[in-house]
């Protein structure tokens, strides 16, 4: 994916045009700098999974499905359940995604979502104990189905929504009885992430694909109601003061998104 001359020139033109409009306080889609695109969440979309949700932020669409299995616990936490997150940037979803083993971007998004959920302590992994050497493993599979920018926030949103929709399966004799459920998982916190990018002198929330192409710095901040639960800076550099502002925005937008999560 080297920079061909035409790519570099196009990126430069895009950056100039974007910067020009941004300097007038306008984004291409006429959003405010700290405004998300329309957000939509649908839970329970996959009947074969114990929990699932599709989150849409603008045209960006991410599916997360939660599946349980009985697994061996980690040796240092013999009574604790296991949570595993995996992300697929489906080649179906964007001309920029290629098929093949997970690349650093899909690994990164899976690990950032995992970090936000785990740090938020929104699910009680101790309740996943089955018997000696057997615990429930919760697999969260993140499928990016259309990438129109900012799949990270859509992935966290879909993951948290999927947890809200997840039923813990009934376990008998150390085996899962498929299709029968013991209880709803009921996450105690609602972690969400807010991604911001810097273009020129401006920080923009929820970047589109066009904005991502010319970003200089990208920062994702995960929040719960009270705490920051994850941070990940990708490309670029950030000052302390910019970080302070970014955290404030992350809490505000995070609370907006949590309202959407709670509303249905």
């Amino acid at each position, binding site marked *: 994916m080297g920079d061909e001359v035409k790519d570099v020139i196009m990126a430069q033109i895009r950056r100039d045009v974007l910067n020009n409009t941004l300097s007038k306080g306008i984004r291409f889609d006429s959003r405010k700098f700290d405004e998300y695109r329309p957000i939509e969440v649908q839970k329970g979309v996959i009947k074969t999974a114990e929990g699932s949700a599709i989150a849409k932020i603008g045209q960006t669409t991410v599916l997360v499905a939660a599946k349980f299995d009985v697994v061996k616990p980690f040796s240092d936490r013999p009574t604790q359940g296991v949570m595993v997150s995996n992300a697929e940037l489906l080649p179906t979803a964007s001309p920029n995604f290629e098929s093949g083993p997970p690349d650093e971007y899909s690994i990164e998004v899976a690990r950032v979502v995992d970090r936000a959920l785990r740090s938020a302590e929104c699910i009680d992994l101790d309740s996943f104990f089955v018997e000696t050497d057997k615990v429930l493993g919760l697999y969260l599979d993140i499928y990016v189905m259309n990438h129109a920018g900012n799949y990270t926030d859509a992935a966290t949103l879909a993951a948290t929504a999927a947890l809200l929709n997840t039923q813990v399966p009934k376990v008998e004799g150390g085996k899962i009885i498929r299709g029968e459920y013991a209880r709803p998982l009921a996450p105690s916190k609602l972690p969400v992430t807010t991604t911001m990018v810097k273009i020129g002198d401006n920080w923009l929330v929820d970047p589109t694909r066009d904005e991502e192409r010319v970003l200089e710095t990208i920062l994702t901040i995960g929040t719960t109601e009270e705490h920051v639960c994850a*941070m990940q800076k990708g490309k670029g550099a950030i000052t302390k003061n910019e970080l302070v502002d970014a955290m404030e925005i992350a809490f505000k937008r995070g609370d907006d998104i949590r309202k959407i999560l709670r509303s249905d």
Partner: protein
Amino acid sequence: MSDSKGTVPLIVDGKRLDGRGIEDLRNLRIEVGIIPEADGSSYVEWGGNKILCGVYGPRECIPRHDASPYHAIVKCRYMMSPFASLEEHGRSGPSRRSTELSKVIREVFENVVIAEKFPNTQIEIFIDVLQAEGGTRTASITAATVALANAGIPMKDMVGSVAVGKAGDVLVVDLNKAEDNFGQSDMPMAISSRDKKLLLLQMDGLLTKEEIIQMVEMAERGCDKVNVIQTDALKRFYEKGEEESIKW
């Protein structure tokens, strides 16, 4: 990074389990130019971490389609050796963790390497963790900065790196393994030495905004200390003129 709440007392009488105060770094030793075959190299011992770093380039970019006619491509490969910790790490190629770390470490140096000077080339940073004791990514960045300087690669700034975390409800600088594993939060950072920009910023655990601001300030002080040791290591090397055999 940490993934469990504190049950072990990590701070006793204002001192940490290894006797350090809250802002003290573990012993940090940096050696320059220890891989004569490399264009630049370094060896860092930081607490129980032992990190080997070799820098190659600018050299021809392979594969060729990765090359840019405008700037050098910075590449980074961080790898944890299978024998680096008491637990077995496996030998089946890069883990998800090391893939992520390679990416974030590369993104640190893309900010400081003056890549425009070397179009169509690549600059490769290879980092091997020989022994790990918490904080390998920050030790790796510390090592890579010195190795890049040793390779004569022009940089806008030096980069120091340290993690600040929360252990036993106290904010502490430079987490060791116990603090990393049993602490409440971990926030590794890398900071450019002159303009104090955050070039690495990751965080897990639960923290308030105020705590995070305080941790950035603690990291700035920590990175200043790291930077002094980095600069000193480079000076020693160039004053001496040639490498001497080092004690591993």
